[in-house]
């Protein structure tokens, strides 16, 4: 009897949780789903009240346009013109693939800079006793907590003066400085959680600090390093204010900057094409997140599991 009632209650509970989980899924995925649907709409058929979902089935020309224009500059001359779009939108959408490639370069380089500078720093902050260590660490955190837009004007002015405007290098340096505190903090906590005795015994056995880092710390903190690297990558991919301001030509624009240009493109407002561009730009980070899903979640959980 008692067992029965417990079972009944747990079935009911399961149903409630299932419904709530579906609600969460809808919350998380429906805006993205609507973007995808819109990007597959045919512009001539989409402006309806109430809104319609793909009356004639998916229409891939928007994606095709973005892709074809990249593959061949002559596509327009072949007579490939998307119905309902005018030059402003065209020019922006055309650069999308190039921008995604730029973004991948910028975000990867940002991650590499973080790895090169942040790994050593995080290890020192966690394990090497130096005078003023915690003060320096605090300094790194606080500089992240300042609003990025506050330094937009000085950075723009200085980069303009020294002629670094319109280069990917300038964007990489800025992005690295934005990602660094996050990166250092995640790794700092991971290194800190390695017991001091592990470090001590390696030191007694004659390992130098550098050897301790490479031979002992790196393997232990691997999930943390991957999670921190993906964070750095995402911060760079996400950032658009500086990427927009520092790049002048389409050749040095990142994906986020091009999406922002797309949002304000002159000419008729071709919604499906803009959405296709947006979806195109968000594909790389989503793919990366899905590939590394386990490591990201693990890396974050292990921050708190000490």
């Amino acid at each position, binding site marked *: 009897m008692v067992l029965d009632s417990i079972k009944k209650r747990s079935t009911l509970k399961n149903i409630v949780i299932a419904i709530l989980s579906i609600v969460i899924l809808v919350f998380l995925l429906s805006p993205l789903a609507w973007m995808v649907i819109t990007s597959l709409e045919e512009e001539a058929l989409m402006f309806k009240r109430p809104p319609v979902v793909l009356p004639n089935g998916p229409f891939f020309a928007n994606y095709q346009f973005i892709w074809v224009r990249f593959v061949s500059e002559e596509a327009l001359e072949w007579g490939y013109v998307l119905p309902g779009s005018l030059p402003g939108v065209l020019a922006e959408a055309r650069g999308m693939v190039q921008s995604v490639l730029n973004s991948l370069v910028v975000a990867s380089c940002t991650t590499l800079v973080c790895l090169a500078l942040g790994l050593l720093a995080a290890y*020192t902050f966690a394990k090497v006793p*130096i005078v003023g260590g915690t003060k320096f660490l605090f300094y790194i955190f606080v500089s992240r907590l300042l609003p990025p837009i506050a330094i937009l004007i000085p950075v723009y002015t200085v980069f303009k003066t020294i002629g670094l405007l319109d280069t990917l290098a300038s964007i990489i340096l800025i992005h690295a400085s934005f990602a660094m505190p996050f990166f250092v903090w995640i790794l700092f906590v991971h290194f800190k959680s390695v017991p001091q005795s592990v470090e001590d015994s390696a030191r007694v056995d004659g390992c130098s*600090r550098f050897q301790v880092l490479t031979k002992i710390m790196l393997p232990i903190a691997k999930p943390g390093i991957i999670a921190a690297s993906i964070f750095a990558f995402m911060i760079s991919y996400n950032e658009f204010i500086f990427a927009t301001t520092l790049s002048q030509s389409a050749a040095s624009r990142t994906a*986020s900057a091009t999406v922002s240009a797309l949002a304000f493109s002159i000419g008729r407002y071709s919604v499906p094409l*803009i959405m296709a561009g947006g979806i195109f730009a968000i594909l790389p980070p989503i793919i990366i997140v899905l590939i590394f899903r386990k490591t990201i979640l693990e890396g*974050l959980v292990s921050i708190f599991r000490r």
Partner: protein
Amino acid sequence: MRELEERPKKGRWFGKDTRFGYLSIVPALILMSFFSAGPLVYALALSFQKYTLGAVERPFVFLENYQKLVESKFFAPSLVNTLIFTVGAVVFVFLIALIFTLILNEKFRANTWVRLALLIPWAIPEIANALGWRWIFDSNWGVWNGIVVYGFGIFNSYQSWLGNPNYAMGTILVPHIWKEVPLATILLLAGISTIPKSLYEAAKLDGANVLARFRRITLPMLRPIIQLVLVYETIQGITSFAYVFVLTGGGPGYTTTTLSWLVWMTSFSFGDFGQGSCVAVIMSIIALLLTLLYFRLLPTKEFGAVTVR
């Protein structure tokens, strides 16, 4: 041996460890100084100068920019709007994330998939997110209007969500909350998974109901992560820019003009970099004060034993 290792040896500034230590942090410090702290000092200097777009000379005017800014009609609203946006964002993000955490923490097979889905809004760049929501909230053809008019019948006609001063602020909060909830949920889930199950079982035996267990066990044990989430979300709220930029452009009127939008507007729309720097400096001071306050309130251990005194 341990004792010796843990404390820096006084008078040994050039010991091997010390040399390794400083050499390893200096590159990161230089990067931060050149691209974060340094420019801020420069912004402070610019805020005392008359610096407009295309100007060759930048005469020193001391506090004139600040005076003009405080007297301008956008300044007071932008302070209030930043406050509304930040408080709204922090409260809603935290509450929604907490509810999600409690649901997803239940043993349920499909929850692995929902956790996976949590990563997706987090991975979407803000600007693309803003663009998608602008279309969702479109006043003529947007799906949100379709839902509230034809789906629920709450309104009789399509509303201008972004053009109506009563709705605009609430509307731009939605994409921000949607983007921020997942990371907060992931962090809270990570925290809640470290609470030992035995605590709940013991409480159950003592006759504590669900609410009591939540209040007496879950909340106190989660406290450090809750604080971390609140700090992070506060900063995200103050610095949020993409949604104002894409969805409203600070309007209608000044109803969504936040400080970060004001920096952009004065600098790049009005071409007054001096005054833009003023706003930037004031914004940084607010962020800095809030951060210091939070660091004071936080148990220092949770920032990884960083002592800040």
